[in-house]
Structure formats: structure tokens, C-alpha cells
């Protein structure tokens, strides 16, 4: 406990900006038990990443860590030091404010209904496209297989993702 009062910090890059958070028990600080999801939402106020199962089962809290899709409810913030994290809020082009083509494609294909799972799905799809610019339909489905969508927007989501892959179908 006393050790926590010392100036221990966790530093990572969030949506293109360097963030340093103190570790401690005050409301602006990060407790060792806090998940990255909790820190994003409750400490940093980024509400786009959604809390659903808090158990690593539904993919609604997916963010990018060093370009790969991770479940922010299953990571402790204190372990995220030195990483680069991107949330749904960080997908827009920072200079122009333009939507990421994937976000625009989700709009063009109405690839959502209630929209609650959409940020997580978009981040999973973004991670796929980061590593594979022209995925097959099966690869898209595999990449999204950990994302829960209850309205069944799956079909429109797959179309939206394929439409922005290189050589993919246009809307």
C-alpha cells in the first residue's frame, strides 16, 4: 500500500497522444486492479469502447494495441506501459477529421442496428485490415468471430469490411 503512493506511473500512447497516468487510489489515478476498459471509460472519459460482458467473451470492448485487436476488459492498465492503443475515437484522420474508410463503409452499408457492438466490431475489422489488406470473406468472418452482435447485422458488416479491402467489392 505505501508503495502505491510513490510516483509510479504507466505511460502509453493513446489515439496518437502520449498519456502518462499515475498509479494510485485517487479518482484521476489508475489502480492496479483497473482494466484498460475501466481506465478508458471511467478515468479518461472515452465512452466509445463499450462495457458488456466484462469477461472477455463478447468483443464489445475491443481496441487496438500495437495494431492488433485486444479485449480491453481482459487487460490491466498497469500492464499497458509502452504500448500504442487506439480506440474508436482515434480512428478518424487526426489532421483532416475525415472518417476512416472503414467507418464510412459501415455507414454506407447500414452495417449496424442498435450500434452498441459496432465500435468493437469496427476495431476488430481494422486490426484485420492492418495485417491483411485484401482478406477473403472467410477471413473477415474469422476475424470477427469473437464479436457478439445480437441484432444480426453480420451480413451487412461483412459487406462493409469487404468493400474497403483492396480489390474488394464496391458498395
Amino acid at each position, binding site marked *: 500500500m505505501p508503495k502505491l503512493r510513490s510516483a509510479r506511473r504507466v505511460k502509453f500512447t493513446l489515439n496518437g497522444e502520449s498519456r502518462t497516468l499515475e498509479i494510485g487510489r485517487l479518482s484521476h489515478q489508475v489502480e492496479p*486492479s483497473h482494466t484498460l476498459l475501466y481506465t478508458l*471509460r471511467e478515468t479518461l*472519459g*472515452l*465512452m*466509445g*469502447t*463499450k*462495457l*458488456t*460482458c*466484462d*469477461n472477455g*467473451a*463478447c468483443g*464489445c470492448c475491443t481496441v487496438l494495441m500495437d495494431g492488433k485487436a485486444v479485449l480491453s476488459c481482459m487487460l490491466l492498465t498497469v500492464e499497458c506501459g509502452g504500448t500504442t492503443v487506439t*480506440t*474508436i*475515437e482515434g*480512428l*478518424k484522420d487526426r489532421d483532416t477529421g475525415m*472518417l476512416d474508410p472503414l*467507418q*464510412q463503409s*459501415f*455507414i454506407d*452499408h*447500414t452495417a*449496424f*442496428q*442498435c*450500434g*452498441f*457492438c*459496432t*465500435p468493437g466490431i*469496427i476495431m476488430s475489422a481494422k486490426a484485420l485490415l492492418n495485417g491483411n489488406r485484401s482478406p477473403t470473406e*472467410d477471413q*473477415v*468472418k*474469422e476475424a*470477427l*468471430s*469473437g*464479436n*457478439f*452482435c*445480437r*441484432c*444480426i*447485422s*453480420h*451480413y*451487412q*458488416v*461483412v459487406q462493409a469490411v469487404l468493400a474497403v479491402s483492396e480489390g474488394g467489392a464496391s458498395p
Partner: protein
Amino acid sequence: MIAPYRYIGKATQRKDALGIVTGTVQYLNDVKFKDLLYGKVLRSPHPHAMIKKIDKSRAEKLPGVKAVLTWENVPDWKGGTPGVTRILGQKLRFVGDAVALVAATSEEIAKEALSLIDVEYEVLQAVFDEEEAMKPGAPQLYDEFPGNIVTPGFPVFGPKCLSAISMGDMEKGFAEADVITEGTCGYENVPNPIPPEPPGAVALWEEPNRVTIWVSNQAPHVDRMTLSEVFGREVEIFTHGHPVGGSFGTKIITWQVQSYATLLSRATGRPVKLIYTKEEHIAAFVLRPSSKMNARVGMKKDGTVTAVSGKWLVGTGHYSMTSQAQLAVGLGEVQIMTRCANWDLQTDVVCTNRNASGSVRGFGGQELKCAFIPILSQAMAKLNLDPLEFFKKNYIKPGDGYYWRDGNWYTYRGIDYTAAMDRGAERFGWQEKWRGWLQPSAQKGPLKRGVGVGVHGNADIGEDTSEAYVRLSTEGTATLITSLTEHGTGQRSNYVKMIGEVLQLPLERISISPSDSVIAPFDFGPVGSRGTYAIGSAAISAAEDAKHQLFLLAAPILGVPPEELETMDGLIFVKNRPEQCIPWIATGHDRTIIGYGRFEPDYTLANCMTTFVEVEVDTETGKVTLQKVVNATDVGQIIDPPGLEGQLNGCLGSSGIDSAIFEETILDSTTGHILVANMIDYKWRTFTELPEIDNVVLETPISSHRFRAIGVGEVATSPGPSAILMAVSNAVGTWFHEYPVTPERVLAALDKVKGKERTGGDS
């Protein structure tokens, strides 16, 4: 043909699209409040118990804890139909029932406080099976419900509320039949719709008697009405709605979580947020009702149903809020699907010691059809009737009638859905694939394919009342003032399209108000299938009224009667003389025009959904794989093509088709615990398991409102489950009468494993 409309029937961007893809839409849990406290619920580990002693002193001493509430220090407020269930009671009726409430400065402190509440329970004998619960000597959940049978009727539907179908001459009906079959079928796996967003509420109590509640429900006015019954009329209730992260009918009434937050705020004077965990969501929120039917059916060789008699047993879990309403609507719907002159269908709603059933899309009708269609199939099989031909013949036709939920008789004035069924069959290839009852459509080694078809429809498309205001700014913009929240169907954007069409105004110039019960007029909300016709009518009328007022102002300026005016893009002009034109603002910059629209209930129209399915059954492993789905419907006029597509694809999840294949709530009948109260053990379909889906949508104009459209999204889930049972029965060559058709059940039917009794029902 040139589309007659500027927006209707065309794909347009949803008003909330940008917010959804950027993560800026504010769902309830995303809203920030000052001085917020966090609420948590201590839940019963026993399915049936009395609280003998409860000591909250240790919890109250924990720093950060602001209130600990138990049955001893809360008002005697009750909910349910009738209102017999206390918000916090001394008696606990299911594993997960609320024992105590805590408000603290953080969620973690609140959680810790729960573990410091000392409770001494007197454990009572519990009952989990509806038929056991009705027997003499069974444990009694409520003094008010002898035999655990819930009071029939639903007050909102009036004194004649439908609780049975009794008409015609049963003796004559059965005498006319060529075959008479009797059977039992249950849809008893009480699947859970599990929207991703958990239920929750934020409440702020202000002395002496006002509470403001931020809700994530479909209709803030329904929350206000429901809570008013619970808290009493002396409490003033304001509700603010937020976008709903999925509902599927479950977030119509969430009075418990709203009441918990209210009581905690009342005790602390600070806003209190209470959001359920996913475990609470699955184990202590809303399940589908359990449904079991025993019926005798008389049928003629040509498929005419001559008589139906029997009993429909509905299990509601530890209490009932809407089960009697679901029962009433289900009884109406079964008549829409089955043209029959002689009925004697009796019912009971029964309480048992499990999490409660409540409102879920398909609202009673899905539960009844899932049990009834397999029983009807026995008679069809004896007569070698193709089920598609049977449904075509027996689905309601113009001029037919039915008793609806209020007990009144209505004559149907809608369309004949035979054409939609035929077009769906064509797309599916029904003629080629249907080989007769209990016959596979194809076979390759151990893999057998089978097909099935189901149908469902509902006269709730015009149920209940809706009101809307459309406010015009003379600068050339309009605002729809409505209490509706967006819960995923895209309907808020669809009303903007309807208003845009009436006013001929670009959609960018039309906005929608926040969803509250403070300023916005009454609306029963997007429940059932009423969104397009009922709510749409109110929005259209409000826009027409506003336009009329605008023309009254413009007429003297343009020197013609108002009937000779038209408007487009914020300009008013004389018909056929567009050069005689003024902008809206010429009627004055210093005024507000408010149009008012109201919809009165109309139970004379019904929608219809037919679902064809093809499954492949692996007779070695018992696995059922859904290969293909075709949904066929007629909506009169499509409002938004991609939105409708999404709604129809929704047939799979939210306790729809998949509730016949793998979705189920498994209750341990020795402890009363739900064993699947997390998203790993509760099974859901993933992206890698998608079947081929095709949706056939006809547009035969229907006499609803000016766009001749009706709603259909809700019922997408309903015809599928019984179609799956039919398809698996045909593939395997033996009847299945239980849901879901798990590998275990398939192998048991093939005598490859010994089947074991599942919880709750029997076959």
C-alpha cells in the same frame, strides 16, 4: 417504374450513423453525472427463502458507503400484474432475487459492502416445474396466487381481456374432421434475448416527491406509467430516454432496476447509477415465457381446421409483469394463423421459483406457435398435407375475423399473404425440397438434410396510442418531438423520412428531439410491430398538421386558398404556378408552428412472416447445422431497404431461430441456479456460422397510412423455431417436440445415446 417518393423506399443514411461509427452515441452508461453514486444489489443464493434476520451494520461502516437498504427500511412499493411483488421483500422467490441495495462512492466499494451484509435465511422448498407448481401441496410463491396460478387478464387491455378462446360448436367441429390428433409440445427452454447493453438506470430523487430517471428503455412514457403504479401517484416522475443498445422487447419495462436506483437516490439525495452485470442481466432480468400446449385438433382432408381444443400453459417464473398480456396477444395471433370456427383453448399463467419471464419480441405469439405448429403438423402428416399449402389456406384472409387482446371481435381488412408465401417458396426451392413428412430432402452418408416452414403474424401493428409534435421553424427546418428512443430498428430515422416526404424537406433539415417524458407527447413506444403504422401515423399527422398551419399563414400572402398551396425545400408556392413562391420565413421569423398528430388503435390489420429453413443433421454427432433461411413477407411499402434487411436477418439471434438449435437457459433444478449466466456458457451464433439468408419482400399497398406501409421487424424471430423442429424431424425421420434440438436430443432420437430428462418440461 419511377419511385413515387423522394425518400421512402430508398436507402438513406440513418440520423445516428455518424455517432454510432465514431463511438459518440451516448448510451445510458456513457452519460456523465456529477456527485454520482453507484448502486449494487445483494442477490439471494436460494430459490425460495424468508429473510429471518439481516444485519447491515458492518456494510454501513465501510468508508464510501452512503446507503444500505433492506426490506425493513424501504416503502411497501410493489410491482407486477397484479402488483404483489415488493421492490425489496422479506420473501425471496428465485436465485438472484434482491435482498439488499447498496449505494457507494465507487462500484468497488459498493461490491465490497455487499459482502459485509449478514443475512440469515429460512430456506423454503422450491418448485421449478409449472405442472408441479399447480399441484396441491406445492410450495406457494404468493398468498395472492393460490396454486401458483396468476390472476388472469391484463388491466390495460380492459375487463374482457382475452384469456381463452371459446367459440363455435366443439362437438360439431370434431364430427366434421377427417382426422383428429392430440399432442403435447413445449417451448420451454426460456431463451434469453441478451442485448449487448445491460439493463440499468440512473435516478435522482428530489424532496419531497419528485424523481428524475435516466433510462435505456424503448418508451420513456411507459417507464413513467409503470413506475407510477409502483410508487403511487403522489410521486412525480420524469424520465429521460437514451439510445438503447439492443432490446428485442425486453427493455419495455425494467421497473426493478429503476426502482432500485430511485430508492437509493431517495436515501442519499444524490444521483445513483445502477447497471446490471452480464450475470445479473442473464440470471435476474427477462427471459422468454415458458410455453407448453396440449391440444386436440380436428382437420379435413383439404386442410380445413374444424376444431381446436386444449390447454396452453405459460410459465412466468417468480412473478408476472406482462405474461397475461403476452398470453392475450398470443391467443389473438393463433387465430390469425389458423382459420377455424370452433375453439376451446384454455390457459394458465403459472409462477415458479426461477428468474422471471417477461416481454420479448414475438410477445406470446412466438411462444404459442412454437408449441402449436408441431401439434398441427401431426394432423397434416396424417393427411399427407404440404405445410406450405396448409399455411396458405389457413392464414387470415380479408373479411375473416378474430378475437383480439381486448376480447373484442375484429374483421380483418388487410391483404392476402398467399403471394408472399409463394414467392418465398419459389426462392427457397420448396417444391423441389419438400419430399413429404419425415422424409429427408437429401442425404449424403451420415449427413441428412431436411426442410421446414413456419408462419407468424400479428394484429399489433396498429396497437395502442401514439402522439407526436412536428415543430417548424420558418427558417426552413423541422423537428420531430417524440418520446421514442432508438433501439436499433432505425425507426427514428424512418419517421424523419416520412416527415421529409410530407413536407418535401431535405432530411438534413429535420432533427429529432431527445427522448423524454417531460416535454415530448405520449407514445406507447416501438413495442410489438407498431412502429411503422401506429407511430408512423402520428408523425405523419403531426407533419400534415404543421404544413396545414403553415399554408394558413401563407395563403393571404400569396392570395390563394390554402388548399392551392404546395411546399418544397422550404418554399411555399401555388400549385402549377411555381413562380408564385415565398420562403417559409415570409410567414414571419418570430413564430413557432407546432403540428400535433395522434394515432388511435386499429386492430383490423395484421402483418405476416413466413420462414423457410433447411438444416443438415450429422447423424453421427447429432449436430444440426442451419444451411439456409428464406424469409418472405409483404410490407405494403418498404421505408428503408437496408434497415428492413437488418431487421429480417435478425431472425437468427435474440432468442429467435437459434432458440430451436442451441440457445437455452439451463436451470439446475436441484439448486435453482441458472448455469449459463455468462456469455461463454450461454450459446450465441458467431460470424463464422452464418447460414445463407434471403429475404423476399413484396410491396402490395396496405390500407394503413399515407405510405401504405406496415411494420414487420419484430416478428422476424417468430416463425423460425417451429420450422427448425419440422426440418430436423424431416431430416432424421422422427418427430422432435422439444427445443432446442441439441446433439444430445438428436442422438437420443436415433437411439445412439440414452436421452435424459431436461429441466422443467417433459415431452
